[in-house]
């Protein structure tokens, strides 16, 4: 159910999610909880609105000089003794990481949660190259054991019950465990502690990277980000190139709103600021530090229609408030990034053709833009994507014909006037007491669950003369 086959049309994928009772329950509980936590956090924080504006402005200002900030970041990291790599494609990014693994003789990699590494499908590549990848975020660990993909940006395993997790641990770890989150967490702690101490390679993403100082910033609650950057002898951070922020002062603006938007915490438990490899005199920390800067469709959007999506902090707030996400969950979307922002990011990464159905998976209600800490106008870009899809003639011909007709009618008052008696005639077999309970063609499905109002016996246009 939760594994996604892209050959199945989106509407069917969504349909099976709607039929999954357990998923429905989990989604309702999780998203409702996140919405409340976020609301409370901002209610308590009067500066929040101003900081959101400021954060948005910083993102825009950064993009306006992105080449300068990226160059500064590269120089800073290299000055600290780190290495910077450049990846235009996912393939290239994987190659960079595999080369590092091979050169350093790495056998096992511990990973802290990273959407960028999900995006480039790094785990499969590591496995194929004989390096065991271990996801260490508890949610990611669970879905890795289950051979699934995350269903939420910040809560990857919200679709699983504790019972399912207990069964999974029993099968994969050969241990009988009670279906108790506390106990399950304890088992994971023991299992993963060993991996942290053994692994040669630590792989992370980056929530931010500060240009001025070469600092990679990781935000976690579990502490795995600290483990992964402290214990293995090599640290590789993979980040989308848009994650750069100019200064520490800018960083603090984002930190003040990120956790509040994501989980309603004032600050996540751990914010880890990493400046390159271990310094002289330091007992711990990696001998080597690598930063992989990932393009994968981002750079061309700097001047593209999805520019604003490059502001995204990956907090997940837009998922929680989206009426569509709340019904279908993350897997039905079919790609790495779910939810409203996920549609835009998928279009960015895979091209607009990949979202010809997904672009319509929104009622344009605007709840996402409202919740977004940096106020990304997601609905506007969804409409823009729909325009691109229409203009590329990817939409089915029946749809194009229907909209072509609609335009003709709406642009001509006389056609508009004459369409009404015609419609009245057509609806006659279906309408009763001013309601239509079943109708053919495009509205068949509409009327499966809802009545349609029948065309009024007298339209307002027709009634107006009598209103004098």
């Amino acid at each position: 159910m939760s594994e996604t086959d892209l050959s199945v049309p989106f509407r069917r994928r969504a349909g099976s999610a709607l039929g999954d009772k357990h998923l429905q329950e989990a989604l309702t509980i999780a998203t409702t909880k996140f919405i409340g936590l976020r609301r409370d956090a901002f209610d308590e924080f009067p500066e929040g609105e101003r900081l959101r504006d400021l954060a948005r402005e910083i993102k825009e200002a950064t993009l306006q000089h992105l080449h300068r900030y990226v160059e500064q970041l590269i120089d800073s990291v290299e000055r600290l003794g780190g290495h910077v790599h450049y990846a235009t494609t996912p393939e290239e990014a994987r190659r960079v990481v595999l080369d590092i693994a091979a050169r350093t003789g790495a056998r096992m990699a511990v990973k802290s949660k990273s959407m960028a590494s999900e995006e480039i499908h790094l785990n499969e590549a590591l496995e194929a190259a004989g390096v065991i990848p271990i996801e260490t975020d508890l949610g990611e660990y669970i879905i890795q054991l289950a051979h699934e993909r995350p269903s939420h940006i910040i809560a990857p395993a919200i679709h699983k019950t504790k019972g399912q997790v207990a069964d999974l641990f029993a099968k994969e770890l050969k241990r009988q465990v009670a279906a108790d989150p506390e106990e399950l967490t304890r088992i994971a702690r023991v299992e993963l502690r060993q991996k942290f101490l053994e692994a040669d390679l630590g792989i992370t993403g980056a929530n931010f990277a500060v240009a001025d100082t070469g600092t990679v910033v990781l935000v976690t609650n579990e502490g795995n980000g600290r483990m992964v950057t402290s214990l293995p002898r090599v640290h590789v951070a993979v980040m989308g190139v848009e994650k750069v922020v100019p200064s520490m002062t800018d960083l603090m603006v984002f930190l003040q709103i990120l956790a509040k938007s994501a989980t309603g915490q004032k600050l996540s438990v751990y914010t880890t600021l990493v400046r390159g490899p271990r310094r002289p005199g330091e007992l711990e920390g990696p001998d080597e530090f690598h930063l992989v800067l990932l393009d994968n469709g981002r750079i061309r959007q700097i001047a593209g229609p999805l520019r604003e999506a490059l502001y995204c902090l990956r907090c997940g707030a837009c998922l929680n408030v989206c009426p569509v996400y709340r019904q279908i969950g993350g897997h039905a979307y079919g790609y790495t990034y779910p939810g409203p922002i996920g549609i835009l990011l998928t279009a960015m990464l895979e091209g607009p053709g990949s979202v010809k159905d997904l672009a319509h998976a929104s009622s344009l209600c605007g709840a996402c833009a409202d919740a977004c800490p940096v106020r990304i106008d997601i609905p506007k870009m969804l409409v823009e994507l729909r325009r691109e899809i229409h203009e590329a003639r990817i939409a089915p011909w029946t749809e194009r014909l229907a909209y072509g007709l609609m335009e003709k009618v709406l642009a001509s008052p006389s056609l508009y006037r004459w369409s009404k008696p015609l419609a009245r005639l057509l609806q006659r077999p279906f309408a009763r007491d001013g309601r239509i309970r079943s109708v053919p063609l495009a509205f068949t499905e509409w009327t499966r669950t809802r009545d349609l109002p029948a065309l009024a016996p007298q339209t307002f246009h027709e009634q107006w003369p009598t209103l004098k």
Partner: protein
Amino acid sequence: MTTRTEFLSRIRTEVGKTPGLFSARTAPRPSDPRAVSETIKRELAERWPQALERFQLEFERVAGVFHRAASIAVVPQVVAGIARENEVRRLVAWDAPELGADLLDALTARGLEPFAMPPGDLADATERAELRRRVADAELGLTGVDLAIAETGTLVLRSGAGRPRSTSLLPACHIAVFDRTALIETLGQAGVFLELWNRGELEGRIGAVTSFITGPSRTADIELTLTRGVHGPKEVHAIFVDQAIRG
């Protein structure tokens, strides 16, 4: 493989194509972070009791345990109390100069098995492996604090020589000792210190990592049930010392 030049020139080209969505500036930075940081400290010399009260409130909200000690000499007693409650004895601590005091003898006298981190790196690989095992086996980790942020109940720790990262990470119980010189009010103020600390090259003994720690390690990944201590410490204690630690 994409080179630095190609990559940057591609970004430059795209940036050049658009004026952007609106006129925008980055956050105004303190031009002299040292001066600003000194002003913050000066102002707190008067306001610190309120800041401490707020710190305690927020720290407890994130499930931290707050203690207060009249002087550093009382700290071993507090630590021993925590150890007793958890029924543990093995403790690793930052090197004495980094902690601000040598507490090993006092801790030993109270029945603990304390071990201090070396003042620097260890050249010998076997020795290092041995030390890591010792830290991993320890039940308590005793550290100092560079900043304590009242607004969020956050402890900020910089890694470095004599103050390894793992002391506050691997033991299930982290105990942090600080006095009012570490106390600040807001995350915004913390930004000033980050600006100050990260100007130019890193100084002598300072390490590569700055950690913001806001309570014990937690997860809600299974059915959103809040669970503590998934990877990092299950308990975090903050001991506030009234009398300046460094005399």
